[in-house]
């Protein structure tokens, strides 16, 4: 195992590959000004965050989100690129949140990587609660309020929220907004855009917003 020693040459990029199945089209957006191309990224992939989504109709697309950290040395690990397949919404939720670390001893996690991973983790947690709430929505009647889970990023949260279907649908009209209990926001990843007596609505920002949007099976 080779340990990373040259941190000066390292940087983090966010690579999108979409859709999978058929010809792959790639586009890469770098978090630094000297980010490599997607093709170069495909040759590295020391740290990979992958996701998959499969929905109905024209939403039937698979995505892979890759965060990778380019090592300073010349030895480049192959991208742990797996063939993606259609999945249920829950399975897709987990699959797309899977983090692969090719060789932990070769990965130098920068603060930028940590920030991206924390943002992704927060968005993933919230998407898990959103998945439950979507099922509640399916069985909810049109009359009266329904009880939904707080969609904050804390996996240990046990709060519930009372929302009308109209209120819930209003929030769900945006893939980057989540209803949460008052005071449950994480300012580093989201902004509170609305507060009522019983709940707040947060708008994800930055990488968290991007991940939240990609994890939304409605969009």
């Amino acid at each position: 195992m080779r340990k990373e020693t040259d941190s000066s040459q390292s940087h983090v990029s966010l690579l999108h590959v979409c859709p999978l199945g058929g010809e792959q089209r790639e586009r890469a957006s770098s978090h630094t000004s000297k980010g490599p191309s997607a093709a170069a990224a495909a040759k590295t992939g020391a740290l990979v965050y992958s996701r998959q989504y499969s929905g109905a109709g024209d939403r039937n697309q698979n995505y892979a989100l890759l965060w990778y950290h380019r090592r300073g040395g010349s030895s480049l690990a192959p991208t742990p690129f797996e063939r993606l397949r259609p999945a249920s919404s829950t399975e897709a939720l987990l699959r797309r949140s899977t983090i692969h670390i090719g060789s932990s001893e070769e990965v130098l996690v920068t603060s930028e990587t940590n920030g991206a991973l924390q943002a992704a983790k927060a968005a993933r947690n919230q998407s898990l609660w959103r998945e439950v709430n979507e099922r509640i929505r399916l069985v909810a009647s049109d009359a009266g309020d329904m009880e939904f889970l707080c969609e904050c990023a804390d996996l240990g949260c046990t709060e519930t929220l009372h929302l009308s279907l109209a209120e819930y649908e209003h929030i769900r009209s945006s893939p980057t907004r989540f209803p949460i209990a008052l005071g449950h926001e994480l300012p580093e990843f989201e902004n509170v855009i609305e507060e009522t007596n019983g709940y707040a609505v947060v708008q994800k920002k930055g990488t968290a917003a991007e991940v939240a949007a990609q994890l939304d099976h409605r969009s």
Partner: protein
Amino acid sequence: MEGNDSAEAIQALTSRRAVIDKRPSTPSRDALIKAINEVIAELEGRDGPMDRTA
């Protein structure tokens, strides 16, 4: 790592369900339990049942 992610999600859902399960039965409470159970079942179906003896 996928198994760890599933286990973490299932554990979070199970903990949340345990809190809700202590409340008296109401339509909204029952809907919450049902929704959580569905998601847990999907996760367990994907990765196999969790070892509940641990």
